[in-house]
């Protein structure tokens, strides 16, 4: 399995590093032809407004949307979660999301950088806690019926899954704990094996 990391802007190098350490072949995706090589895609943290603009100028917007619609496994963290969501509040009016997972969220819902925080999270199926790193993170306000919530913080979902798509409002690529990446790869392997 070849995993792509959307490398338009943001913390993509951290994801590339973690996936490499897990023994995966990793491709940085900046252009349409690079996307066609990959079986699954990670959308990293960064600035969602910037990534959104670069998705349009690179032609990746439609290419990624088509692959997601066709069931490509995807993991989105922070800004990547915003890009995969259905409805985004407090965003720029021209900012569009893929609607690959049925959740509504608010950008920077936890506040500004001085409110960014670390917190240990209970994740369903994990032994012990998982170190959550929340940086100007989005807040999930609604999840649809088909969405499985794997972790919450103060009543808001922070780790969710629906079909082939997993999203986190925090940064598993920053914390040194690879279990969420492993979980996503297991999910991707299962889905791709069924195809």
């Amino acid at each position: 399995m070849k995993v792509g990391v959307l490398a338009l802007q943001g913390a993509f190098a951290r994801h590339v590093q973690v996936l490499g350490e897990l023994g995966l072949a990793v491709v940085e995706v900046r252009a349409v032809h690079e996307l066609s090589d990959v079986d699954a895609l990670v959308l990293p943290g960064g600035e969602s407004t910037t990534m959104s603009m670069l998705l349009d100028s690179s032609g990746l917007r439609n290419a990624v949307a088509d692959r997601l619609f066709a069931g490509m496994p995807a993991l989105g963290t922070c800004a990547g979660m915003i890009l995969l969501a259905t409805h985004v509040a407090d965003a720029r009016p021209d900012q569009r999301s893929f609607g690959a997972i049925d959740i509504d969220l608010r950008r920077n819902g936890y506040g500004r950088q001085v409110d960014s925080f670390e917190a240990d999270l209970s994740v369903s199926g994990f032994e012990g806690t998982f170190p959550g790193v929340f940086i100007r993170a989005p807040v999930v306000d609604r999840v649809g019926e088909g969405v499985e919530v794997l972790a919450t913080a103060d009543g808001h979902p922070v780790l969710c899954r629906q079909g082939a798509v997993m999203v986190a409002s925090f940064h598993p690529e920053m914390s040194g704990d690879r279990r969420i990446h492993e979980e996503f790869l297991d999910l991707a392997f299962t889905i791709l094996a069924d195809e």
Partner: protein
Amino acid sequence: MSDITRSTGTQMVKRGLAEMLKGGVIMDVVDPAQAKIAEDAGAVAVMALERVPSDIRRDGGVARMSDPEMVEGIKEIVTIPVMAKARIGHFAEAQILQALGVDYVDESEVLTPADEAHHIDKWAFTVPFVCGATNLGEALRRISEGACMIRSKGEAGTGNIVEAVRHLRSIIGDMRRITQADEAELFDWAKRLQAPLPLVQEIAETGELPVPMFCAGGIATPADASLVMQLGAQAVFVGSGIFKSDDPAPRARAIVEAATNFEDPTILARVSRGLGNAMPGLEIGELETRLADRGW
């Protein structure tokens, strides 16, 4: 009732925001209208200041922290992070900027220094700091004071990239040499750089700075952004280069494209077309004030 325990202001979240800005362009803006243009063009953050460096250079006098009203006006208009500058050593200005809720404080040589010996103790703050550096020793001293992002100083307000290139080559070249040094030589490196030994030892192991390194000072074109990123900068600050050019919006957008596609000359050629005149540049040898000399 909260079901989690939140730790704010940790090194992880401070350095983490710098990680999120990688591959992006941070633009100097002097009012909400410019901030909007910057965000529309794809900036990852804006730096709110009263005058861009080329005007500070032209006007002379003491340059200080911006008016809080102006910083707040910019915060209201954009959804991306907002940074602001405090004078070197002026911890009271930094405290005010933190209270205003800015996302990053730049302890900057572009403003007139407030302290001739001491930089701000940046560990004492929840808000993260970026500091300029001309060489590795300076970068490590700033990191030991708590800076969570380093940028080259370059020579702000000149539209001339030569100083930024010198600073980046100096920092990266020394890091490369340190990775070749043996244990005993690291003590000498620490002494010569006037930098803490543990940070020098960390570089010997990893080959890179413990915090992200960006480039500032003199970037005026998409090609400039590509040059410094190929040299090893992980993102770019553009000061006077955008809003002192003929047509700011397309130039801003082109530099954003360049920061993502810095290794692809075909895309760089496409985005560099028809941008009008870049800002007028200045020869470094003819400057009255060298901003990069400020800081200790």
